[in-house]
């Protein structure tokens, strides 16, 4: 380690939990962040400042004005240019540390690209906004024996959990299936800006300990910032009958549970079905404050310029205004949940 880095990281090196050896491990680590929204952009800044210069930043979306309330790395210029989040994040990281080696990947993580994108990483941090990608990450992490750190946040409530294959339970041990139907999202239920940074901080804290070689207690931490405080439970043991880590069936990684998407007509994408029937009346109530909604008992149409989403009772949706499957998935995750 050179003199400049000894100075830059001096406060961490002086902390006995990290020390010189821990700092060297942090500098040597390569970490992927999936989703560079509120959780991911905070994780990226915190990990880089801690010395993790080799970050793989994956995001399919671009910066919008309504992101600036909670997505710490970005600014108005990013929103005006509609800059892809992964690239905007990498640019800002370079200003924080000129030796940042962040690699932006503007893509929707899917079974076809996950192996290549995450090849050679030591750890994966979850900054996604949907369950489909989390189950995919869980499959990949368990198959390759790579730890990952789940985080989720909506409103004033969030959860964080470290998953170390072979040592802790996996995500599917606790939650075998993603929840069905309409889910609250940050778009529909809102989110407090310090909640996402709190959950991301918990994730980064677990990451730092893991990368420094400290065995942390396997627990699930929840925070409700507007009532309830911070709570912790011990993770259960891995289940022998867990489809993913017990039976080692990686159905999401193999694409068998992938939500099929197809182009339909000109400039429209169909998402065939997500997690089953959707309560259209409930969805209408959630979407009314956000834009024009027309609904009957069979279908709901929601206008989110320049796009138009039609969601059917069985969970199928047509997104008009794009031929990009990633944008269609993103809109579905934002407004319907997945």
């Amino acid at each position: 380690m050179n003199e400049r880095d000894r100075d830059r990281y001096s406060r961490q090196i002086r902390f006995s939990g990290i020390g010189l050896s821990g700092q060297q491990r942090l500098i040597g680590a390569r970490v992927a962040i999936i989703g560079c929204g509120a959780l991911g952009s905070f994780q990226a800044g915190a990990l880089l400042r801690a010395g993790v210069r080799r970050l793989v930043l994956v995001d399919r979306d671009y910066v919008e004005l309504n992101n600036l309330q909670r997505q710490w790395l970005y600014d108005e210029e990013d929103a005006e240019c509609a800059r892809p989040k992964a690239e905007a994040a990498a640019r800002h990281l370079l200003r924080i540390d000129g030796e940042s080696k962040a690699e932006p990947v503007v893509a929707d993580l899917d079974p076809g690209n996950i192996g290549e994108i995450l090849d050679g990483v030591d750890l994966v941090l979850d900054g996604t906004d949907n369950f489909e990608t989390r189950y995919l990450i869980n499959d990949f992490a368990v198959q390759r024996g790579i730890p990952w750190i789940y985080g989720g946040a909506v409103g004033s409530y969030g959860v964080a959990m470290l998953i170390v294959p072979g040592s802790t339970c996996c995500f599917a041990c606790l939650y075998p299936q993603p929840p069905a139907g309409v889910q609250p999202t940050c778009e529909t239920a809102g989110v407090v800006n310090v909640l996402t940074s709190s959950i991301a901080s918990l994730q980064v804290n677990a990451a730092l300990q893991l990368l420094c070689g400290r065995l942390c207690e396997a627990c699930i931490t929840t925070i409700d910032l507007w009532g309830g405080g911070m709570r912790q439970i011990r993770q259960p043991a891995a289940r022998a009958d867990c489809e993913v880590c017990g039976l080692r069936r990686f159905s999401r990684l193999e694409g068998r549970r992938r939500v099929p998407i197809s182009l339909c007509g000109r400039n429209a994408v169909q998402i065939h079905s997500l997690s089953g029937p959707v309560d259209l009346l409930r969805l209408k109530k959630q979407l009314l404050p956000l834009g024009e909604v027309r609904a009957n008992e069979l279908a709901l149409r929601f206008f989110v310029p320049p796009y138009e989403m039609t969601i059917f009772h069985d969970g199928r949706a047509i997104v008009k205004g794009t031929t990009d499957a990633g944008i269609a998935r993103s809109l579905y995750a934002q407004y319907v949940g997945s």
Partner: protein
Amino acid sequence: MGLATTNKVTISVNGDSMEVPSGTTVATLLQLLHVEPEQIAVELDGNVAQRERWCDISIAPRATLEIVRFVGGG
């Protein structure tokens, strides 16, 4: 006589004390609380209860439960 009395037990749920009828199972408690079962994990007295057993486990007096809801936003 003739007045059925339901025995109540006091339990703790996420740090809040509450009274439930004696013999309440984990599954019944979740219904009482209007919690959607697939989105949560339940810890009972320090151990996560397997979801297949929620219907069978009666909650003992003074039991401590933690209900963890998992969320998708980020």
